[in-house]
């Protein structure tokens, strides 16, 4: 930072301190041991349910597909629990996590026993003693809905192409083969089915995105347990490096009908992980999403909801922690999912603050918010690396370009709902 500041004058931006920290290769999250402990702990707690999310998202996209009555779409078959992660285990294409490629043992244990008692899957499902896929689906829908508007990558526009429509048509007809009722419906309302397939393509997109993030978070947790990360920027840099290592991973949508694979979006289309999944995910889920249902009434006519989707600001970076703790909305369910897998050191930490065990959900929600600011910092740094100049560049003009980029990113947190200011304060819990 000192080096940068000597070459260009200090920023006058509202978040100048944070911008200077980013210019020094740091994160939006202040670099404290407490913050490091919190974010790594929550990455671990997030990774285990995420291990379920990505598997189930792919299961729904590939196998459940257009089942008109998908009652059992959250009942992950053994085949998908055993599905090998491409970034973990001995069979990995690129081994990010040193652990196993199959579902995490803690996840398997939880699926069997739940939080309450050992019982059938149906019992656990109805008792809500399960991993809540509703959160994953909400993220997927955010990506799908905002995808039309974000103008990022080529994945979304491809969903309107004739090629995609043809591939979807083949798959739909194959799936409903021998079912004249559904085929008749398809004949009558082709767009409705096509729209469902587009959504399923986003299931696949998000599933493939999280397949990567899951081992990344596991590995970060293991490194931290071994004393490997010294500070928050170490953790952020691990993410930045991971992003570049996996950036080219293909994003596709395959459907398996009667043992045959239908490539609705083939790997050869060249859609890549960074541009077609990671960046749209951050924009749609971290920044935008949509107002959470059931917690606050928004009056669109009174302009309480922004007119343009690009102005939406309901993502985790803006999230109000209290609606999170209220009704059964997706983020609450994520907090609930993470609660099952909190590392002991994080449990002890929550025990010491606020209401201890009684408000762990809120505390871990805020930790999650901190950790996502760190992930966003990694994305911002990755984008800067990809599009602009190194932080130690000698040319002041280049450094000024970087500065402008960082300032433009920080402008998004000027609105009052943004929690960037809050997370600077260690007492924000």
């Amino acid at each position, binding site marked *: 930072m000192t080096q940068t500041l000597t070459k260009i004058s200090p920023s006058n931006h509202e978040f100048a301190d944070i911008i200077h920290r980013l210019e020094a290769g740091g994160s939006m999250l202040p670099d404290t041991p407490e913050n490091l402990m919190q974010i790594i702990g929550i990455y671990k707690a997030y990774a285990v349910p995420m291990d379920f999310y990505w598997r189930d998202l792919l299961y729904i996209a590939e196998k459940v597909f257009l089942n008109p009555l998908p009652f059992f779409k959250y009942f992950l078959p053994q085949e998908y629990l055993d599905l090998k992660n491409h970034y973990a285990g001995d069979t990995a294409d690129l081994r990010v996590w040193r652990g196993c490629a199959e579902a995490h043992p803690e996840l398997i244990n939880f699926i069997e026993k739940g939080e309450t008692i050992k019982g059938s899957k149906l019992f656990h499902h109805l008792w809500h003693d399960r991993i809540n896929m509703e959160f994953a689906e909400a993220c997927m829908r955010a990506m799908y809905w905002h995808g039309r508007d974000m103008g990022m990558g080529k994945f979304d526009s491809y969903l309107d192409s004739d090629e995609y429509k043809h591939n979807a048509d083949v798959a739909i007809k194959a799936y409903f083969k021998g079912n004249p009722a559904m085929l008749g419906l398809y004949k009558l309302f082709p767009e409705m089915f096509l729209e469902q397939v587009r959504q399923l393509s986003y299931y696949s997109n998000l599933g493939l995105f999280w397949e990567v993030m899951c081992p990344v978070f596991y590995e970060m947790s293991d490194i931290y347990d071994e004393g490997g990360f010294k500070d928050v920027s170490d953790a952020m840099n691990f993410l930045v490096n991971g992003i570049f290592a996996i950036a080219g991973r293909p994003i596709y949508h395959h459907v398996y009908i009667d043992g045959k694979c239908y490539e609705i979006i083939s790997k050869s289309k060249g859609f890549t992980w960074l541009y077609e999944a990671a960046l749209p995910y951050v924009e749609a889920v971290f920044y935008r999403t949509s107002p959470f249902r059931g917690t606050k009434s928004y009056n669109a006519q009174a302009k309480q909801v922004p007119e343009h989707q690009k102005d939406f600001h309901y993502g985790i970076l803006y999230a109000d922690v*209290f609606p999170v703790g209220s009704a059964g909305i997706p983020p609450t369910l994520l907090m609930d999912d993470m609660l099952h897998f909190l590392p002991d050191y994080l449990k002890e930490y929550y025990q010491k603050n606020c209401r201890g065990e009684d408000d762990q959900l809120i505390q871990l929600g805020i930790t999650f918010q901190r950790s996502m600011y760190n992930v966003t910092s990694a994305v911002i740094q990755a984008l800067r690396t990809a599009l602009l100049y190194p932080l130690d560049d000698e040319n002041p003009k280049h450094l000024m370009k970087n500065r402008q980029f960082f300032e433009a990113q920080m402008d998004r947190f000027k609105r009052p709902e943004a929690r960037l200011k809050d997370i600077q304060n260690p007492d924000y819990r």
Partner: protein
Amino acid sequence: MTLSLILWLPLIGVLIIGFFPNPVKTNTLRNITTLFIFITLCLSIYLLTQFNLGISKIQFTEYLTWIPQIGLNYSLGVDGLSLPLIFLNGLLTLIAIYSIGEKVERPRLYYALMLLINSGISGALMADNLLFFLIFYELELIPFYLMIAIWGGEKKGYASIKFLLYTAVSGLLVLAAFLGITWFSGSASFDYADINTMALSANTKFILLTLLLIGFGIKIPLVPLHTWLPDSYVEASPATTILLGGILAKLGTYGLIRFGLQLFPDTWKLVAPGLALIGTITVLYGALVAIAQRDIKRMIAYSSIGHMGYILVACAAATELSLLGAVAQMVSHGLILALLFHLVGIIERKTGTRDLDQLNGLMNPIRGLPLTSALLIGAGMASAGIPGLVGFISEFIIFQGSFIIFPIATLICIIASGLTAVYFVILLNRTCFGKLNNKLAYYPQVLLLEKIPAFVLATLILFLGIQPQYLTRWIEPTTDHLIATLTPINVEIAQK
């Protein structure tokens, strides 16, 4: 003997607390206070079980000649008018002990004053001698004054002096009336049994009754004699407010019935329409001013003024049903008000504010005060007279009983009870619902010790709302007997 125990046990407690060797923990003092109050509460429950429902006159009488030269005797007894209030006194003192939180400054004095208050109020309710009543009625002033002055809020000095001045004037007026009653009627003593006002001239009776009405009107308080109340209620600690509103104010309405209605039955008809008018104004004023408040404690204080107005309208109507409703309202209002102030005390302790503009989203299940909010909603419903809760029972009986005598006043009161719902909806909507403020909401948890009093009160409010006979059975014989002497007057007013 039981009545003497109820009277003297708390005073023994005062001595024990006073002479307890140092160093002494606050918890020890609280436990001693709790023990003595709990025993008196048990004794009052014992009285309830032993009370003969077939007898309308004073029971469990205890009599000792004390200072015959001035007509002052140690004369105790209870009837359906006083017994429920004695129970209420024990219960609310017990609740108040646990309404101030863990830390109490100068605990020795604090708990001693609590015991004194309990004993004083019991004494006033059990006294069968005008002067004996007055001793306790006046004795209350000092502990209450100290409670406000020492453990009060920012303006405690102002509030406590105002309280002292108003209630001292109240005491003086009542004393003047009592002396006039005894001297002009030529009674040998101040014993109730010896007093006979029938021979007094109409003007004398009117003047004496007016003195009583103003004296007790300050205590109730009635508009426009009420201005001490909002300041005292707001500045006093929750425990003191519970005792002030829950039981001390009832001494005013109790005195009105016991001495105004009972000693001057024929003059009552003259003042009844005026009383009904003042009662109605009090009800409307209380409700409307409550709506305008931003401080929830002040809102409940004004709500209390309004609810006391119902009692006055019922007393003015003086029918069997209205008087039954009036006494039932004393008990139910005491319970509901105590619950409201207890909960407001919890909210203030936990959030550090009583400001409607700052409080929000307390229903939040994780970081809010969900149980406190839920009980606050229940208490608000009870206060607004929602069926199934004790507030409905007493208000319904009052309206039913008063309508025949003062239909317009009663209808206005019914409308005003709707206004109760208005300000409680405002209060609940602002405090309990909405969104918690992210920056402020690091509230400590409500302790079990703080929850238990609220549970006890809420249970009683619900139970008596469903089984009102456990409230009215003790009151009915006495109020029926009281009204039997007034029936011709009622008919007269009704015919007018």
